[in-house]
């Protein structure tokens, strides 16, 4: 591996602070008071539904878009009015962005050629970076001679070659097929750990975000809903939106009293920030529900499907609620539509509980 990159790994990272960013297009609030702080060397994924302002946030950080108000601070310096080419940020775009008239090596050398250093140093560094992304043997190819995945690797090498303060990735993998995507995403993470650059990674694929990021920021309507480590985001979402958006949840009518929610005939503790008393909507993960075949069970199996590593049973209760339950994949054949089953919540089943006034999508829509 590249020694140049690894020996610098510890001192690469800088803090990035986006504070109260606002940006409107016509009447659309693309950013509506976004505040997002990245710790030095951190890998943060920005997640959210289409149109929530992820790209706009990234472009404001890169200087490709001017915020109407708010500040962008990197390593303690206010960069809000600094032009893109003076910001020292490496960027990988969703669209293929290699310069078509240059070879892979020349693409990587481009940023270096605008900085100090001899031609020989440049060549060496470009070679190292291409090795780092696993393309050491493709240095003389043009963009049109490479696959989409290879092009994005070169784009990553090009962005990293200038040793940027911050690395920005805007859905760099979305044009690739599933296999290459997961491979490349793990590789991006490996390289990021090696070079230690503070990284903001925009995606709308939650699996991708949860898999690679130190922390995941969930955006909605131009603001940040929650910024937390993946497991925390999944286990204790701060808002109903996050609970609903990240992972799949059942939304069940329940009742809260004394910090416990009554749901599915069981009693479970609720998470902080939930309503404390009275009727409520309880969000329960599919893996938070226990299912048993039982002739006196109240629920009926609607369908059972094999999902590869796991299985899923969809059942309906007498109240007309539809509940998704995760089961082991080998158990799927045991459940047939029409079978009677008993559903009970596991002890740690409840996610967030809110009063139901907040409108959310139906369960199973994600």
């Amino acid at each position: 591996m590249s020694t140049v990159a690894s020996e610098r790994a510890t001192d690469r990272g800088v803090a990035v602070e986006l504070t109260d960013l606002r940006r409107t297009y016509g009447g659309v609030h693309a950013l509506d008071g976004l505040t997002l702080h990245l710790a030095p060397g951190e890998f943060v994924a920005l997640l959210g539904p289409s149109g929530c302002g992820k790209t706009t946030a990234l472009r404001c950080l890169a200087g490709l878009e001017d915020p109407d108000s708010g500040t962008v601070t990197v390593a303690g310096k206010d960069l809000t009015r600094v032009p893109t080419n003076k910001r020292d940020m490496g960027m990988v775009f969703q669209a293929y962005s290699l310069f078509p008239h240059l070879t892979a090596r020349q693409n990587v050398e481009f940023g270096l050629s605008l900085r100090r250093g001899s031609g020989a140093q440049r060549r060496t560094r470009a070679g190292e970076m291409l090795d780092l992304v696993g393309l050491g043997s493709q240095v003389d190819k043009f963009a049109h001679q490479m696959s989409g995945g290879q092009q994005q690797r070169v784009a990553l090498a090009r962005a990293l070659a200038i040793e940027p303060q911050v690395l920005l990735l805007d859905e760099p993998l979305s044009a690739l097929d599933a296999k290459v995507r997961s491979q490349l995403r793990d590789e991006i993470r490996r390289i990021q750990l090696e070079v230690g650059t503070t990284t903001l990674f925009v995606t709308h694929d939650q699996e991708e975000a949860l898999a690679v990021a130190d922390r995941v920021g969930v955006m909605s309507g131009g603001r940040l809903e929650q910024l937390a480590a993946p497991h925390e985001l999944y286990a204790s979402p701060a808002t109903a939106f996050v609970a609903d958006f990240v992972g799949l949840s059942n939304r069940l009518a329940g009742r809260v009293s004394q910090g416990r929610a009554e749901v599915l005939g069981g009693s479970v503790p609720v998470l902080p920030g939930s309503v404390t008393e009275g009727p409520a909507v309880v969000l329960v993960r599919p893996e938070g529900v226990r299912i048993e075949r039982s002739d006196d069970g109240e629920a009926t199996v609607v369908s059972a499907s094999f999902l590869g590593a796991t299985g899923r049973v969809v059942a309906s209760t007498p109240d007309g609620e539809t509940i998704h339950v995760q089961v082991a994949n080998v158990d799927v054949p045991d459940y047939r539509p029409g079978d009677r089953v008993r559903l009970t919540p596991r002890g740690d089943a409840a996610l967030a509980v809110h009063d139901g006034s907040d409108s959310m999508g139906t369960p199973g829509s994600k």
Partner: protein
Amino acid sequence: MSGQRARIRRRQRTFRWGVVTLVSAFFALPLLGMLDFTTRGPGGVGRSGQTWRTLADFGAVATDYPTLNDGVVTSVGLAVLTVAVMLLLLVPTMTWVRLRVPRAQRLVEFVCLLPLTVPAIVLVVGLSPIYTWLTGWLRYFFGTAISESTLWLSLAYVVLVLPYSYRAIDAGLRSIDVRTLSEAARSLGAGWPTVMWRIILPNLRSAVLSASFLTVALVLGEFTIANLFSRNNLQVAMYLLGKSDAQISVAVGLVSLVFAFLILFAMSFVGSAGQGGALTRRLRSRKESA
């Protein structure tokens, strides 16, 4: 079934060759006529290569036909200047408009195509007060040597070639993702001049070449404006020469026609003659648009 298809194909081929022959004849006949005229012997009797021998002797041409010599030099100068001004004007402007004010693209297109609808005489009438004003200032600052130069005609020629070069460069800009490429370059630390020079321009190579070739061909063939401004250029010189020495005049005309033809011919190979990258890119973009 297949017999019928073969018959249709045969008929199409005959038709195609028929069209090609007709068109070739249409273009070749005048040229052959010119060739015939310039090789006639004295008094129109017999054959003689005298005219072409004279023309091939540059020294003799320069002394014997000073107007022609001046016209050629002026036209070449005008062609070079017009290309330079046209490129400096169009490439950055069109790139900028595409990136920053895409809504204005229609307006720019309209303005650039406008000269097609304006007759040369109208252009001259409109331009002459501007030239009078410009010449006044130029004389004031630089003296008559510069203010009286025919090369100022290139400004009028830029207007004249605008529709054609606009089309060529627009096609080039359409074939690349200008926004992403320039944003990528800027994020790597390139300022706008570097983006233009090292990223946009190389990718517009064939578009820039076709725009330039078209411009050269148009400028070398321009007569009306130069004549109406009482300036000498290649075509005006040929016209004047035609009154005194028709054979030389026609021979020069033939040379310039063949030259223009070669330029246009070269132009259609611009993309493919370059390095592999340019060719494949062009083929690919053609495939995508198909």
